[in-house]
């Protein structure tokens, strides 16, 4: 999901501002970006959640039952009102990364799985949570997701279901495949998905549409997102190493902006917005 507007509901200001350019970047470099917006819904008894979300986000318009049915015919009658964020987009992350890798290879970039023997002029360390040995304020935030196949349902865009306990998003991947995500647990455990998380995600999806009851579970996934205390990314420089980390749940949304800042710093010496420590690790912002 490239959902800078929806994420702006709780995220710090740079997420919405810098995330706005992500869809265009991914389209240019990887393709496959679908600009169909995001539909945000609640179940009838959680209607107050929709009002709260509307107050704290921008770039949406209210849609009634008819509007929901015209955007997503298969969700007709499932909700009386919702919010439509027309500017948002989605892509298939795995396809996008593979395309990016192939295009880099076409330009002569070689990928290695081991550290090169020769010491490079610059090292960009983007190891995520594994870089905690160098970045002590990095923490893990566990996320769990499911991939389903549901032949009885077609969606054109990501749908977010607001719920006070179990917020959920469903992203269509095409061919009846959907990604359901994602839990947020303050834990760096990377093991398998838990029964509770699967129950919650599936019951929320089932409440959105009973057709999910007959879906196949293709895949479950769990991992820990790397995050700093304000959940914003950082670029930190120690000698000839630049650490790029802390993208939290905004990897695809903020990676283009972070990579751009990194390149600007290396090539032109521009101080990045996300640099809070200087060469010796001294706090500067």
């Amino acid at each position, binding site marked *: 999901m490239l959902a800078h507007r929806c994420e702006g509901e709780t995220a710090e200001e740079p997420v919405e501002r810098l995330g706005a350019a992500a869809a265009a970047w991914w389209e240019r470099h990887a393709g496959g970006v679908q600009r169909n917006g995001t539909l945000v819904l609640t179940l009838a008894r959680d209607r107050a959640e929709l009002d709260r979300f509307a107050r704290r986000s921008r770039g949406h318009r209210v849609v009634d039952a008819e509007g929901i049915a015209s955007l997503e015919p298969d969700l007709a009658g499932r909700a009386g009102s919702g919010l439509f964020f027309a500017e948002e987009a989605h892509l298939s992350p795995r396809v996008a990364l593979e395309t990016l890798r192939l295009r880099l290879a076409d330009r002569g970039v070689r990928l290695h799985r081991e550290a090169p023997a020769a010491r490079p002029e610059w090292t960009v360390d983007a190891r995520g949570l594994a870089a905690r040995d160098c970045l002590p304020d990095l*923490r893990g935030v566990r996320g769990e997701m499911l991939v389903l196949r549901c032949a009885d349902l077609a969606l054109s865009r990501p749908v977010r279901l607001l719920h006070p306990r179990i917020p959920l998003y469903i992203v269509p991947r095409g061919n009846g495949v959907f990604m359901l995500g994602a839990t947020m647990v303050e*834990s760096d455990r990377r093991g398998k998905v838990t029964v509770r998380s699967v129950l919650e995600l599936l019951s929320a999806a089932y409440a959105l549409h009973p057709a999910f009851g007959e879906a196949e579970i293709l895949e479950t996934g769990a991992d820990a997102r790397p995050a700093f205390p304000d*959940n914003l990314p950082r670029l930190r420089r120690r000698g000839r190493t630049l650490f790029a980390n802390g993208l939290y749940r905004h990897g695809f949304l903020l990676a283009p902006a972070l990579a751009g800042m990194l390149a600007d710093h290396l090539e032109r010496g521009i101080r990045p917005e996300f640099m809070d420590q200087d060469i010796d690790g001294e706090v500067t912002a």
Partner: protein
Amino acid sequence: MPVFYGVEVGSALMLGTAQYPSPATLAGAFRSSGAGVATVSLRREAGGGQDFWALVEGLGTRVLPNTAGCHSVKEAVTTAHMAREVFGTRWIKLEVIGHADTLQPDVVALLEAARILSEDGFDVFPYCTEDLTVCGRLVDAGCRVLMPWGAPIGSGLGLNNPYGLRSLRAHFPEVPLVVDAGIGLPSHAAQAMEMGFDAVLLNTAVAKAGDPVAMARAFALAIEAGRAACLADPMPARDMAAPSTPVIGKAFLS
């Protein structure tokens, strides 16, 4: 300031640490409010929550670990032991949930868990209802603090049963009482303090506010005002008007 198990805390505001937009916002809410106690859950984070727990300990506030998410005596007792190991404290906020939709406490299991933990040297803070009998039994089981709900957890409905809470205050004048759960607005917290409660515990009302840092401060002010009002012995309410200036001699009949 409230005294729990012989420890005086710096504020009657007890603040939960869940659901904030980020740990930085969480820390800001504690700074702006001066909250006296930070509650933290262990159940779901078990096996990987060390980083977050370290952040909570870094708030510089006394930590009250809880057994949120536990549905049985065994789960709650195990979680309490884990909390004692992790945070090095005998304090435990004991929650045993009995109803999935309303998150009402299972008071039968709560009593049993409270007895087991008290005998094992824990200082138990039981999340309970305002039922006088249940509260009496919790005190018999060794609890020296009672934490009745105001309304279901996360509902923001305020004090659903003011009569019951007043009655509880009157029946347990010596036991520190904390309204836990259901608080949505600073006025709800002020109301509890005006009734003579010793403290208020809340989480969602701050964490899910548009500006949690500002809301935490609003709660701190309301709690201070409510406590001051209680100590100042409020006037009784009455149905008939009582002018504050004499009307005899004024042309009030003209």
